[in-house]
């Protein structure tokens, strides 16, 4: 009896996640219908985001927020990936035992800081530094990208460290036993052994960077313009959605659902690609 109940409950839980996924997709898709009919795939290339006279209709295109999202994410990943790998390698293979613990705790705490705090810190403390170093207004692509990188580094480093820790000691010992150096053991044994976890952590971090709203909203400038320089302000999908939801109506609202759908599909596609990649590798 108890076993039966438990089985049903776990089946229900597992099915629920599938239905949620389908349900969210269905809602996004149906609410985006008006915009989809109006603009079709041209939506992806159109730069305007203009409400019509008397709040009726208007022209809405997703090009700028899409580009903004991709560029901030790209900057964040380029900065974060090597640093996170370095941290993970240091913590698993190089650091003396006494400092592993405090470092690991610090990294886990960094990962737990709410994103709005990163946003405030970034805006009031970090943006002026970027401004002095690289010019521009302080807020913009670069600032958003760097703070985004800082946000995902601990997350990426923690997952990578955990998967590097699963490389068995005896495997590393056997590499040392045939004359490998520490660097060679890391490169040839630890990294290939934990490849799945490393790529997984990169993809999860990528997903987080794509969808990050609060911190980026503080730092990207929220300007509907194509950035010409790396320090220019622009906007991103989640930032545009968060800023415009309160007032949007009709076609603008539908266009925002369209953008949300794009973000959903891109995130979903990324993770599916990663899954397919892993399955083929194994």
């Amino acid at each position, binding site marked *: 009896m108890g076993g039966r109940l438990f089985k049903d409950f776990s089946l229900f839980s597992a099915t629920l996640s599938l239905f949620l996924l389908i349900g969210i997709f269905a809602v996004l898709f149906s609410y985006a219908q008006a915009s989809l009919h109006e603009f079709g795939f041209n939506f992806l290339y159109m730069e305007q985001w203009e409400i019509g006279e008397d709040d009726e209709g208007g022209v809405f295109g997703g090009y700028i927020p899409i580009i903004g999202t991709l560029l901030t994410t790209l900057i964040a990943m380029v900065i974060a990936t090597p640093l996170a790998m370095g941290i993970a390698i240091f913590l698993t293979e190089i650091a003396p035992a006494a400092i592993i613990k405090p470092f690991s705790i610090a990294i886990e705490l960094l990962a737990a800081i709410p994103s709005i705090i990163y946003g405030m810190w970034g805006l009031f403390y970090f943006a002026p530094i970027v401004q002095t170093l690289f010019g521009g207004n302080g807020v913009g692509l670069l600032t958003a990208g760097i703070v985004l990188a800082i946000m995902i580094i601990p997350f990426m480093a923690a997952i990578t460290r955990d998967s590097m820790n699963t490389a068995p000691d*005896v*495997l590393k*010992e056997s590499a040392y036993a*045939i*004359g*490998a150096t520490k660097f*060679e053991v890391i490169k*040839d044994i630890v990294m*290939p052994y934990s490849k799945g976890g490393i790529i997984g952590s990169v993809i999860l971090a990528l997903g987080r960077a794509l969808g990050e709203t609060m911190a980026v909203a503080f730092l990207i400038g929220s300007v509907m313009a194509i950035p010409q320089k790396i320090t220019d302000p622009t906007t991103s999908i989640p930032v545009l959605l968060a800023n415009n939801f309160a007032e949007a109506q009709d076609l603008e609202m539908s266009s925002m659902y369209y953008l949300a759908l794009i973000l959903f599909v891109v995130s979903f596609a990324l993770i599916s690609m990663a899954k397919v990649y892993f399955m083929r590798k194994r």
Partner: protein
Amino acid sequence: MNTTQKPIMEIKDLRFIYPGAAQPTLKGNNLTIYENQITAMIGPSGCGKSTLLRALNRIHDLYPGCKYDGEILLRSNTTGEMNDILKLRKENEFIKLRQQVGMIFQKPTPFPMSIYDNVAYGLRLSGIKNKGELDGRIEKALKEAAIWDEVKNRLNDSAMGMSGGQQQRLCIARSVALKPKVLLFDEPTSALDPISTAAIEELISELKKDVTVVIVTHNMQQASRLSDYTTFMYLGDIIEFGPTEEVFLNPREKLTEDYITGRFG
């Protein structure tokens, strides 16, 4: 004892303490390893036999805080002198030592790469880049490890797909390829089935033509079948060392006799 046999390693008054341990794990061991002979180390769990084995290629030093005292001498190829390996400090000295004193572990440890690359790995590390030379050395090593016929048609397959016994022979090939002077086996068959065990034992007997073997084993039949010399250890001390026949048939020490006859252990 045959006087023509030359010592290749000599352990003198070796004491060893793990980091943070109150008691030394090895309490002043003396032992001679003879060239091209198989020396077995037996004794109950926790007696220090694996610790002693792992001192012989300083693999302990991968973990900080281990303390040695005494001498471990290894005969040099070039000068024939006995040099103390406990004096080594630099990473490249350890690498040279471990290329001369190889090690096979309890569980097979194939690297996550192809069969070919597993054997090629150590060779490439030692500086051999030439494809023809690599191919030759790999084929020879796989033949010496009695696994060539089973893998010659699938050298590019992942080593992870082999059976446990095959993986262990691959690991032996990987070590043999470097032409070590001494090979240390740490219970190499304890994770294998009887047929694979027999294959590995036969292989070890063959190997002694070219290398000196030191093997830690829990299996007393294995020690008596395989080895020329046997060391019995107990609580960090070497209780008895001698030709295997003597140790098993006519032990000098009561403790040895009790262990061998199964009265404890």
